[in-house]
Structure formats: structure tokens, C-alpha cells
């Protein structure tokens, strides 16, 4: 594997309250990433449908943020994914999920958005 060995990103980062960020694995080529925004139905299981899709189709999911929107009936999910030829297939499979309402690219967001949410954003908590 050619993945960088020095200072790997943290594997799991838990943020306060309504925001969860999970790093799946470090990207092999950190320059080519895309951010997808999903509007989803907010209920238990939606996260499993989205992350499970990436796992079983062998797609790369680097980071995910999910926050409830307005009254909490829907949530906004931001996915950091590899910008590879298969991205279109990823989007089409996501669009088939019943709980996914809309999909759009967030050109305004980069990897930096997710790394800012990393462990430096708050002091480590003892478990």
C-alpha cells in the first residue's frame, strides 16, 4: 500500500450534539476529492443505508457529516468522496435510496471543510 504512514488522520471523531464525523480511511490521493450533499429523511436507519451502500458497492467514503435540518424531518448529509470516474455511478446508486431526497455537488466545499472538524476543533474527551 502506498498510503502515507506519517500522522494518519484520526479514525473516529465525535462532535457535539447533532454532528457526527467519521473518517473511513485516508485518501490515497488527497487532491482529488468531491463533496456530495444529500438531503435525506431523518430517521434511524438512513445513515446505515447510505454508509452500507458505499461499503457493499466498494465505493470510497472518506468522511461524512450529518445534521438535522429545520424541524428535524430531514437531515443534510455531506459526503467526502473520491472524485473518480465511478462517482457518477455512486450518485446514481445513492439516488435510488428511498430515504435520499436530493443529491447535489458542493463545489464550494473541499476536504478542508472536513479536516477543520477534526480533533483540533475540540479538546479530547476521556472515555
Amino acid at each position, binding site marked *: 500500500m502506498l498510503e502515507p504512514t506519517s500522522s494518519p488522520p484520526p479514525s473516529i471523531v465525535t462532535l457535539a450534539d447533532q454532528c457526527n464525523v467519521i473518517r473511513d480511511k485516508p485518501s490515497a490521493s488527497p487532491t482529488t476529492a468531491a463533496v456530495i450533499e444529500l438531503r435525506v429523511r431523518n430517521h*434511524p*436507519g438512513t445513515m*446505515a443505508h447510505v454508509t*452500507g451502500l458505499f461499503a457493499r458497492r466498494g465505493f470510497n467514503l472518506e468522511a461524512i457529516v450529518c445534521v438535522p435540518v429545520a424541524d428535524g424531518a430531514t437531515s443534510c448529509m455531506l459526503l467526502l468522496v473520491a472524485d473518480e470516474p465511478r462517482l457518477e*455511478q455512486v450518485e446514481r*446508486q445513492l439516488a*435510488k435510496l*428511498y430515504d435520499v431526497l436530493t443529491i447535489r455537488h458542493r463545489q464550494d466545499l473541499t476536504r478542508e471543510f472536513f479536516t477543520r472538524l477534526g480533533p483540533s476543533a475540540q479538546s479530547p474527551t476521556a472515555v
Partner: protein
Amino acid sequence: MKITGAKLLRILLERQGIRTIAGIPGGAILPFYDALHQSRIRHILTRHEQGAGFIAQGMARVTGKAAVCLATSGPGATNLLTAIADARLDSVPLVAITGQVSQALIGTDAFQEVDTYGLTLPVTKHNFLVRDPAELLEIVPLAFQLAESGRPGPVAVDVPKDVQNATIDVRDWPEPGGPTPAPACPDALIDELAHRLIAAQRPVLYLGGGVIASGATDLAQALAHRLSAPVVCTLMALGAVPPDDSLFMGMLGMHAAKGTNFLLEEADLLLAIGARFDDRATGKVAEFCPKATIAHIDIDAAEIGKIKPAFHGLVGDAADILRRLLDRLPQQRRPAWRARATELRRTHPLHAPPCADQPLHPVNLCRHLGEILEPDTVLTTDVGQHQMWIAQAYPVRRPRTLLTSGGLGTMGFGLPAAIGAALALRARRSPDDGGSPAEGPALPVRRSLDEGGSPAEGLALPVRRSLDEGGSPAEGLALSPAEGLAEPGPRVVCVSGDGSILMNIQELATLADLGLNVAVLVFNNAQLGLVRQQQELFYGRRYEAAHFASVPDFAALARAFGLRGLRLNPNRDPLGELSAALAAPGPCVIDIPIHELANVYPMVPPGAPNRQMIAEPELASTHA
């Protein structure tokens, strides 16, 4: 009206027009079974939940409507999984309902607790865990809508016991769920496809199961003849084009006739319709149809370009797109291309020894079945050599008459699927009140009693009715086994192997309960034939775990279940005996000894391009 969640679930299913459910009870689903006690829904008690899943599949595959299977929590749910996954891969509408431990116990490793939601998530189109009886009012119609809309598929509904027991005051009933129309494909895309098809020199139509799901088989045939384009079918599309059609080239891929795969090498335009470029069809993808550009019609946008880039993708209902495409296409002649297809078909026939010499050669057997069975006979298969021989040699004349596990390749599919098909066909014959799910908020008592029920969806199977059509619908419910024997319904044939049949053999007991007109034909070579074939061809004849040390007496086994059983004698007019056995009414098991070394030819080695086909004569010279 104050009712329990269990009764609410039952009424919602009745309102969906569900008349038959297959399942097995258990602790976590008992409240629902109690609610079934006074229902017009007939419950088919199977001997294994997988049997229930495949019985529901048999009903769904014949009618095109979602069917229901039922299981308890824990092992009941896990036993259903294979049938659910099978429905997913073959796009079969199915609603699987499971009991779950009470919500207070979820997550405590309670008795018969398993994460059914988590287990069904990757093998369903969508799944639900019901948290409150009021949610059933939304979830049940939605489950049917999702199962039947767009690309059909299975939906799982997990219902905790406390939700079944809770009471709820229901005032407004939801509309039953049904298929929603797919968004229309833009005209411009159809215009462009029409231009491309007119410009093509050597077009080929590549039909998949979606053509049958869409009810577009007549339109696909019309398109082929308008374009003078030969047609290849996937396993799931067999029956979409009559086998004697001058443009029909049979199944493509791993076990295609040689001429069929050669034709695809020469095509300059491949129009895929409701097909998904499965590896068993394409062989090595990079070398599939090397000279062709690809156009793809599918209702599932994710299929376009998933395996092979398509220059032209049209998302929508195949029937709608083909109808509009035909409006734009003048008659094309292409005499040279037609002649080439005919020549390839003529020069590469399916190889079989003369019937007089080897009547029980599998290819001869399949051809004989084609001669003696009615064109609308539903035939199911299991998985293995016998399945491929049927695909090659049995003439599937109508859509929805070959039921086979294509994508998942599940051994054990055939018998319960045949039972489900026979149930659906028998129901079609019985009186029907003609109700359709779209009628409105009808009370349960007005619902269709017929699981083949709603007026229908372009099925090619003729709706045959019994002479006593005048009978009141109410008489049709809950046939007792004795009544079942009195009206066994049309003949349904399950072609199986001695390996496959033992994987769900216990459903012979269910068949005996019902007395349906199902005949099980066991192609018996005392081995896992397709495994042995692959070990012979690709693993240096190092046979491992392919031969059975002992094989049961299937005729005696049938009699032990209370069914007619016989074994054909190769030396005493076996085909005549087979015909007579199938002509006699009622369920039966027919054990057919076939040559233990018979192989399915031609065969493309897994991972090889389709032009590299191993044929029998070549094999003989290789090993001479």
C-alpha cells in the same frame, strides 16, 4: 374503530388485495397469526421459511404483482434472507413481513432476537422497522408501492411484538399502494436513438428481464422485425420472443449457442433493453461486442453505463419507450444481416445425440418437454446443469412461463416457486370480483379475493376461468386441502437436479397439503453436475465434493410425503412414461436418471471473452 396493530396489518394487507400469504409462525409473530384467524387471507404453512419466500416469489413472478411471505423473528427472519436476496437480484416484487421481539427487548440479545433490519438492509430495495402501530398506515401501502414501482424488488417490514399488540384508533384508511408510473423519457433522446438505429448496418437487440417486467415483449418483437434486427435474450428474458421467430437467436453468454455469441462479435450496434450486462451474459466485458456501440434502455438509471459505457442511455419504462420508438421507425430490410443471422443459427445448432439412441440425454429430455407441454405451461427450474439445458433446449413460448433463479442462482428455488406459481394460476381460474387496488378507500370486504387479482398488466398468460364462474367471490377463500385436490389447477413443472431438490425437499409436504398440480422432474446424475463440469474443464479433473456418496430413492421419498413417485426406466420407453406421468393429474415426483458425464455445451470459461467457447467435439479432440 379501535384495533390492534396486528389486525391493522391484516386489514391493510387485505386492502392490498392480498389473498394468499406463505409463512411459518413463531413467538414474535403470533399476534399477527391470531389476527389472521378470521381473515379471508389464506395462509400457506410451509416447512421452512425459505420455502415461504420462494412460494411468494412464484406467485409474484407469474402475476407481476407483489406477493407476501411471513416469518417470525430470529431464525425465521434469517431463513427468509436467501429468498429476499434472490428477489433483489431478479427484480421480483416481494413484501417480506417478519415479527420482531418487543421494542423494550431490542438490543438485549433476547430469545430469537436478530437485527433483521440490519440483515435485510443490503438485500432489499428498502426496509422498515415499525416503531408504532400508526406507522403501519403509511408503511404497508408504501412497501407495496416501492416493491412494484420502477424496477421491482423486495421490501422487508419488521414488526415488533409490542407494535402488533398495541391498540390504535383508525379513522382514515390509506389508499392501497401500487406501482407509480416512471418519468417519461424525453422525445429528443428517442429521436436520436431512432436515427442511430436507422443508420446502423448490423443492429442486435439484447433483451433482459426488464422487457418482461414492463410487459413490453410484443413491442420488442415488433421492434426487431421493424429493424430486421436479430434478438438475443438473457436467461431472465427467455419467453419474451417465441423460439420459432425468424430473428430469435436464443440466450447469449456463457452457455449460448456458438452462432449467437459470434453474431454479437459482428454487431455494430447493440440495443440493450431491461438488461444489466451480467457477467454470465457478457463474458469478459472489455471484449463484449467489440465492434458495437451500445444503446441502453432501462428503468433503473444506475444500470446505464454501470458495466459498459453506453453512448446512448434512455431511462424509462421499456414499453413506453419502445412504443414511441416504433412510431419513429420506418421498416428496415437489412437482408444481408438477416441472412447472416440465419446462417449462424443453422451452422451452429445445439448438439445432442439422436433421441432414439439416448432419449434421456438432457437436451432430448428438454426438447421432449417442449413437445408435450402446453405453450402456457409454467416451468420452474433449480440451479445447475439442468437449468442451462432448459434454457438452451426447452422452447419458452410465453413471458412469465419460465421461472428461474437467474441473478443469485439459488439451488432450492424450483419446488417452492412452482407451488407459488400453481397457487397463483389456480386463483386466476377462480371467481374474481374484479376489484383493483386503485379503486379507492374500499372496505376490506370489497377487496379482490384473487391474488392474481387486479386486471392485468399485460400478462401474456391467458386468464383461464372455470365454468362455474358465477360463484360468489366469498366462496373462493380458504380452500381446504380437500378442495385443493378437487381443483388442482393447471399443470406446473419444476425441473430440478438431485443436488438442488434436496435443498428444499421439505416443501413436498406443503405440496401434499395443497394437492396442487406440480410435477417435480429430478434430472438425476448423483452429483453437483455443474461443479463437476467445471472441475473437469478448468481444474484438471480433480473432482472434489462434486459426487454424492448416496442418493435417495426420490420415488420412495415422494411416496413418504404422500405423493405419487416414479423412476423412469431408460430401457422401457422412458419418454412415453414421462408423458403419461405428466398427463395424470395431481402432484408427483419423477426421478430421471441421466448420464453422469453429460455436460452443458457450449461453455465460455468464466472470465473469458464470449468468442472462446468450449464445444463438445473440441473437447473430445483435446482429451483424445
